[in-house]
């Protein structure tokens, strides 16, 4: 006979040691994942010599030179000429003149960035909006050939989108959508809407139809019932889907490179061109990349509660 153990463990309890091991593993992984990001962030605040020094500098004198270079275009002048201009008017003039440069005007980064914002968020909104309606329709109504249609929608994702780049390029040139924000919004929406329909349909399927039916017998119209009862419960699904769509549209490089050059160029094809502009300007690239990463980070942090609930959806619901 053995005595009853003085400590009883329930099956779900995690021991302190496994917690410690898990913590170490997670921390190690986080470090590995975060190092490139920290590197980018740091490079943005280095001076050009620091940014290419070998061995790499971990401690350095931070400067905003990278950001100034990112937002301006400059010309190289002789020290005599610079002296003749009189004292610098602003702090960024001063920074530039230290390297024998004179600021000749703003760079195109701000416009490219704005294009990215308009195209990224615009296409995300459209894809999620259309996806929500389509998902609701597929989930709740008798749609003829429902399964075939859903498969067709999914099948648009089976090829890498870039495989159709040439036809789209020709088509866009023909109908005047080349190098327009509208063209890019439509294109990214088309790519994203399949993902959006499928993801959101899963979420709508999880919401019992009794919710709307209760509203219907209480005198609400179908649309009102949808807005009042289904939409609020789809919040986490919509948040999760929006992030996926935004990440694709925001990071997309190949189509942007091919279809936009002037007017509607987005940040991804623009940032590499910084390298070519005034020698290897790594701080400017670092600054541009940092600013480029920011919206996704902010968006994800803002929606993180919804997102977590979205990912665990179905697993914990009764």
């Amino acid at each position, binding site marked *: 006979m053995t005595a009853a153990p003085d400590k009883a463990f329930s099956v779900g309890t995690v021991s302190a040691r496994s917690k410690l091991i898990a913590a170490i593993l997670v921390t190690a992984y986080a470090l590995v994942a975060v190092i490139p990001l920290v590197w980018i962030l740091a490079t943005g605040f280095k001076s050009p010599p620091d940014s290419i020094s070998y061995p790499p500098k971990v401690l350095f004198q931070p400067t905003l030179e990278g950001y100034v270079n990112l937002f301006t275009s400059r010309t190289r002048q002789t020290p005599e000429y610079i002296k003749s201009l009189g004292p610098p008017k602003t702090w960024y003039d001063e920074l530039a003149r230290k390297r024998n440069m004179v600021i000749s005007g703003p760079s195109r980064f701000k416009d490219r960035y704005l294009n990215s914002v308009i195209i990224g968020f615009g296409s995300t909104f459209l894809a999620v909006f259309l996806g929500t309606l389509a998902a609701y329709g597929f989930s709740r109504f008798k749609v003829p050939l429902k399964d075939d249609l859903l498969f067709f929608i999914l099948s648009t994702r089976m090829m890498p989108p870039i495989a159709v780049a040439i036809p789209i390029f020709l088509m866009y040139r023909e109908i005047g959508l080349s190098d327009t924000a509208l063209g890019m919004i439509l294109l990214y929406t088309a790519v994203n809407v399949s993902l959006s329909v499928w993801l959101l349909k899963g979420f709508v399927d999880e919401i*019992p139809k009794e*919710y709307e*039916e209760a509203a219907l*017998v*209480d*005198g609400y119209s179908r649309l*009102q019932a949808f807005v009042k009862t289904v939409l609020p419960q789809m919040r986490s699904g919509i948040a999760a889907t929006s992030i996926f769509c935004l990440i694709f549209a925001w990071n997309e490089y190949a189509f942007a490179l091919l279809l936009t050059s002037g007017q509607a160029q987005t940040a991804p094809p623009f940032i590499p061109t910084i390298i070519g502009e005034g020698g290897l300007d790594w701080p400017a690239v670092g600054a541009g990349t940092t600013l480029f990463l920011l919206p996704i980070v902010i968006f994800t942090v803002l929606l993180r509660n919804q997102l977590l609930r979205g990912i665990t959806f179905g697993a914990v619901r009764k």
Partner: protein
Amino acid sequence: MAEIRVENLQKNFGDFVAVKQSSFTINDGEFFVMLGPSGCGKTTTLRMIAGLEMPTEGKIYLDDEDVTFLPGSRRDIAFVFQLFALYPHMNVRRNIDFPLRIQRLPRKEIRQRTQEVAEMLRIDHLLNQPVGGLSSGDRQRVALGRAIIRKAKAFLLDEPLGALDAEFRDLMCEELLLLHKRVSATSVYVTHDQVEAMLMADRICVMNNAEVLQIDAPLEIYERPKTKFVAGFIGTPSMNFLKAKGSLAPGQSEIEVNGVSVKIPKTHESLDNAEAIVGARPEHLSLGDDGSLRGEVFAIEYMGARQMVTVDTEAGRLKVRVPNTIKVRYGETVGLSFDSEKLLVFNPETDKAVNSTLFDGAIS
């Protein structure tokens, strides 16, 4: 308040018939219970009355107005769903006043009516709480509150007590009945629990396999079931069925069960089968040495003042309900006698009860 009339209502899902040619009238202010085993089409019938499902055939009248194809939102009927369907993103107050908010009533009136309903259901202290943390009983009350606040023409309740545990169910049953007395609205209540049905109903509508079998007052259904299914479905433990020799002539008042002649209520019609089935409820059998049918005691269950004795006879295993004062032992051979006035005879081919003097006093 309204009368609901259903005529030849049918619902097919593809080839599958969920509700078959149902016709009945639910009277104004009546508490009408639809009873039947799982999958027999109760919910489907209710959903057609509510306008959530369109019938394949037939008509639905609400106070003589044909509402068969009117959308649910325009029928002014309240529905309580099986799983309550409370909105998780709204608090109790919002859930209850939800039906009023579409009617664009003045704020003050909405608040006042919500308060009234909440007090009536004793949940006024919960009004500002989220529905997530409520107990199942309170959730039930919120669902009822949402239904009664609108003063609809009729209430449809789909197994509203199904999610509650047994003890609580009895309590809610009573509350629900009290509530019905107070608002005295036409109510259609769906359940598969015959005890609930017997307890609450003005009339019970028994369904099986998509068909309405019988509509009657609870006692009527209990004493004068028109089919063998109804007889067996109502009552715990269920009715004893004994094989008997068929072929009955009108006016006959005896039947042969296992070689023994048993008196039955005088028949009004003939039965031309080789076999018949005699139905006897446990309380319509008694133990006695003079009994015509003999058997061995197989089990004894004590139930308060009464006991349920199971007897193995040559005609099958029979349950007998007798007072506690009668002493029986396992394995003992006992005689069984029948309360002849209450016996039923069924035609095994059609499942129907043979008409007899038992049915003479029937209300319908």
